[in-house]
Each structure stands twice: as structure tokens, then as C-alpha cells.
């Protein structure tokens, strides 16, 4: 955006500031990635090594998937940044229709 151009009149200062900011964001992205790997390992371990009933495992691993997808959307895809209001409207509208569809197909198809 045009109003995010260097403001101090000294581009060198701005570029160093921006490089630092980008590097800091990248560090957060790597942390996000480690959390996502951790969630994935938990899901696979729960199924592979855990001795749980399927009534517990299914909701548990779906919850892990939802958390991981939130990380992906809000950090990797930058939805946590400003200027994503319309994006949220579009995506959550899609999620709403998606949820109703899946609910219908898993409950009333074999009724």
C-alpha cells in the first residue's frame, strides 16, 4: 500500500527496520511450523500407539486438525494481518456451507 512507503526520508533506516521485522515474522512462522508438526505427531501417535476407543480418537484428532488449520490460515496465509476482513467473510461463508453439508451427509443420508 502506498502509505506504507518509507516515512523517515532515510531509506536505509527503513530497510533495516523492515528487514528486522520480516526476519522476526519468519521466526514466528518457524515456531508455527514446529507447533503444526507437533500436532501432526500427536494425531498419528494417538492412532498408532494410543489405546483409546474410537469414540475418543475421532473427535480428538479432528480437534487437532482444526487447530493446525487455524495456524495455517492465520499465520502461513497471513489472515491475522490487517486488511483481511473481506477474506474472513469469504472463507467463513464457505466454512458455514461446508459444515452444513457435512452435517447433513453424516446424519440423514442413511436414515
Amino acid at each position, binding site marked *: *500500500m502506498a502509505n506504507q512507503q518509507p516515512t523517515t526520508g532515510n531509506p536505509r533506516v527503513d530497510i533495516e527496520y*523492515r528487514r528486522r521485522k520480516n526476519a522476526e515474522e519468519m521466526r514466528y512462522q518457524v515456531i508455527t*511450523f514446529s507447533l503444526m508438526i507437533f500436532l501432526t505427531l500427536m494425531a498419528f501417535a494417538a*492412532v498408532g500407539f494410543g489405546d483409546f476407543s474410537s469414540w475418543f480418537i475421532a473427535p480428538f484428532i479432528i480437534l487437532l486438525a482444526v487447530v493446525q488449520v487455524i495456524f495455517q490460515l492465520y499465520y502461513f496465509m497471513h489472515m491475522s494481518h490487517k486488511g483481511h476482513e473481506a*477474506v474472513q467473510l469469504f472463507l467463513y461463508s464457505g466454512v458455514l456451507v461446508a459444515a452444513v453439508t457435512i452435517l447433513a451427509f453424516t446424519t440423514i443420508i442413511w436414515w
Partner: protein
Amino acid sequence: MQAEEKFTPETWPASPEKSTLEAKNKFLGFWLFLGGETVLFATLFATYLALKDKVPGTDHALAKDLFEMPLVFLMTMILLTSSLTSVYAMYHMKNFDFKKMQLWLGITVLLGFAFLGLEIYEFNHYVHEFHHTFTSSAFGSAFYTLVGFHGAHVAFGLAWFITLMVRNSKRGLDLYTAPKFYVASLYWHFIDVVWVFIFTVVYLMGMVG
């Protein structure tokens, strides 16, 4: 700011993916498309869940007979890592470092091909070892439609990245090319989002029974 303007790291804007009107429109339109993709994949997931293990006879393989954890785990790790490498590519895009961006996109593409290769091996295995095909059962149709659609998205994403990388290899970064790379990387992340639900709902829940 003009789309054709030449930039240096000093004059490169902080948000090049949204610096021109065209870029803003592209960004908005692409997210609208992703909302639609969410619905598309939801209908395929819903169909799969409704038809899971619906086979015509007892000699047909069910989900718990088919899926093997090591292969799915490997595919998951590869795709997840490729999501991080495309984040690295966009990090270098924001720093106006075209060469490093191309390098990380190249790594992303290689990981994508590795994933696709494993998926082809997997489908081939199911068809020849278990006679689990698209037409063998309702379960088979629903499974191959859902996972195959995701695989087709991976293939399309790879073609998209490669086209952008080759076409802009001499042009480099400006406000016309940067939004294109950014949108392609969003698409790649979305493919990963879908895979998270596939490995959870199809494979892990399939192994549980």
C-alpha cells in the same frame, strides 16, 4: 506506483502483494475462490463420509485394510514441509531477493513432486494389491474422487509455480509479478489445509475403523 516500475531493495514496498489496484483485486478474488474451494472439498468429504466402507461384498477391502501409516506419515511430512518452504519463498519476496525466492520455490516444487509420486505409488498399490478401484465400490468412487481431487490440485499448483518461475525468470520482481507469486503460494497453503483434513478424516479415522 506503477506495475512496470523498476525497484531496488530500498524502494520495494512493505506489502508488494497489495500495492497496486490489480494486486488488491487479485488478492480479494483469490480468497473468494478459496471460499468456493472450501465448499467444493466439503461436498467431497461429505460424500466420502457417507459412502465410507460401503462395498458390494465381504471380499472387498475396507479402509482399515487399505491404509498404512508410514506412507501417509511420510506424505504428510513432505507436504507440511513444502508449506514452510513456500513461506520462506515469500519471506525473500518481501525482502526483494528474487534469486532466493526462486530457490525456495524450487525446493517447494521438488517436495510437491515427491508427494505426488508417493500418491501415484499409493493408488497403484491399492488397485493392484487390493483391487480397490474407482468402479469397484461406492467406497472406491468416493475415496478416489476426494483424494484424487486433492492430488489434481497439487499437480495444478506445481504447474502454476513452474510456469511463474520460468516465465518471470528474466523479469524478476516488480509489482506485476510479486502478487502472482503471492497468490500461488496462498493456493499451495490451501492445498495443505485440505490435506490436513484428508490425513485426519480419511486415513487416521480409516485406520481406527
